[in-house]
């Protein structure tokens, strides 16, 4: 009962300075919402990437010439296929296309035959020459759909008319937004690949435990090659959004610094009015512990309300509104950028970290200066 009465007094005290405290809650909740949005977004992207890319090729072998990615001869693929332990070595044909009309970059990918059972395609993948399947981003920016013609300029500067046979469904935007999938021969003709050349090779290995050994053998056999294992691909995406990424460092650090300034302002001293109030309370018989409890409840009421509001705002922002505030920051110069429809993977540890990093310093910075005032003589405290 005594604690409830102190809480009641703390709330009355906060309401006496309602506009100041309301603005404090607004700024505090906004800071937490920014911090939590960045953490939710990066964690969801990271988790989705790692869950999807476990089906990426086990080993990709590129050729590096003069420090740059170069085309590989199909003969190299045969040499890789002859290494013991290699189940298959399949050439991949893909490249980039800059569309001057929309100023967007597309990724063009050649497929040999229509892979069976792709639910994520509305329509179908190209089955005949002159057909293509496109991502939602390409369909949107070029305003084409199934049955329409997509005109791209090939390496000889001649317009190539492709009939859109399929469009990738929206849930796959994170993977296929900028894709234009063509038949393999169409792609070879389009980019003007020299005969017997492929972009790189996807290598299948019988025993997953031998992938690194086979990568080492390929490197020894062809010193100008660069093998990239699936675990490296997964590691890349686990690292792309870690704390060293610019997004985390800029947004997260800026919000954290803003919060530190807020807490520092509180910690560096309490106003003369608050000191007088503490003096009066002491004079009428409040114990130091009662005053500390009062200040604890004041800090708790502000920080708990702000934390809950901030976390709710961050969740709604990232998983309901597609991170609309953060998207322009992340987008950079990308003309085609997918809408975020992320699967809400949440790490409870992150919520605990946000709570600990924000509530504890704020409550401490409310209680500690008050403790200094509460142990002073009431008369001195009342005189400010």
């Amino acid at each position, binding site marked *: 009962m005594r604690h*409830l009465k102190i*809480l*009641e007094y703390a*709330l009355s005290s906060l309401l006496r300075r309602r506009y100041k405290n309301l603005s404090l809650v607004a700024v505090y909740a906004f800071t937490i919402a920014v911090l939590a949005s960045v953490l939710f977004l990066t964690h969801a*992207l990271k988790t989705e990437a790692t869950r*999807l*890319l*476990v*089906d*990426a*090729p086990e080993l*990709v072998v590129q050729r590096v010439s003069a*420090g740059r990615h170069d085309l590989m001869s199909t003969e190299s693929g045969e040499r890789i296929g002859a290494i013991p332990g290699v189940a298959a070595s399949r050439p991949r044909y893909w490249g*980039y296309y800059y569309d001057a009309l929309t100023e*967007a970059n*597309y*990724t063009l*990918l050649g497929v040999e035959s229509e*892979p069976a*059972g*792709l*639910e*994520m395609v509305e329509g179908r993948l190209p089955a005949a020459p002159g057909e293509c399947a496109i991502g939602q*981003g390409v369909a949107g920016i070029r305003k084409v759909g199934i049955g329409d013609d997509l005109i791209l300029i090939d390496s000889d500067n001649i317009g190539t008319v492709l009939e859109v046979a399929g469009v990738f469904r929206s849930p*796959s935007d994170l*993977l*296929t937004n*900028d*894709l234009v999938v063509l038949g393999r021969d169409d792609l070879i003709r389009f980019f003007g690949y020299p005969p017997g050349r492929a972009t790189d090779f*996807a290598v299948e290995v019988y025993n997953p435990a031998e992938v690194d050994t086979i*990568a080492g053998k390929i*490197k020894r056999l062809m010193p100008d090659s*660069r*093998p*990239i294992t699936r675990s*490296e*691909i997964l590691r*890349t*995406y686990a*690292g*792309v*959004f870690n704390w060293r*990424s*610019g997004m985390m460092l800029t947004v997260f650090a800026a919000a954290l610094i803003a919060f530190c300034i807020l807490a520092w302002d509180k910690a560096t001293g309490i106003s003369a009015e608050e000191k007088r109030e503490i003096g009066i309370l002491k004079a009428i018989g409040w114990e130091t512990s009662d005053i500390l409890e009062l200040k604890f409840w004041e800090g708790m009421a502000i920080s708990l*309300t702000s934390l*809950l509001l901030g*976390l*709710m705002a961050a*969740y709604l922002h990232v*998983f309901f509104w597609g991170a609309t505030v953060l998207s322009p*920051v*992340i987008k*950079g*110069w*990308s003309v*085609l*950028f*997918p809408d975020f429809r992320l*699967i*809400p993977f949440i790490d409870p540890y992150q919520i605990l970290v946000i709570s600990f990093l924000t509530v504890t310093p704020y409550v401490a910075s409310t209680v500690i200066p008050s403790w200094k005032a509460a142990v002073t003589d009431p008369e001195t405290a009342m005189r400010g």
Partner: protein
Amino acid sequence: MNKHRFFIGLTLLQTIFLGLLLMHGEARVATLSGQQLPALRATVRSLQLTDLSLWTEARYTRHPSQADRFTPFQDFPSALEHFPAGSIMAPVRSDSSQP
């Protein structure tokens, strides 16, 4: 004695709402993991995809897993990395991880 009741009620209401949001998230993860993820993984497998289609502005931002960490500086001698997305993402995997 009304203010503390109001505060406790409001805090409980906020906690319940946040709890509902998190439960909604859990339910969506369960549903999408069962329905959507297998279809997306089949797309990755069939098309032999290696990267997310996030940043399309440069080769090394479109396929970070397929690029070296020095790729952003290869446009011309002493070129500086100038694509905004390059400053958003962390440096790609370490060279020491290569066989």
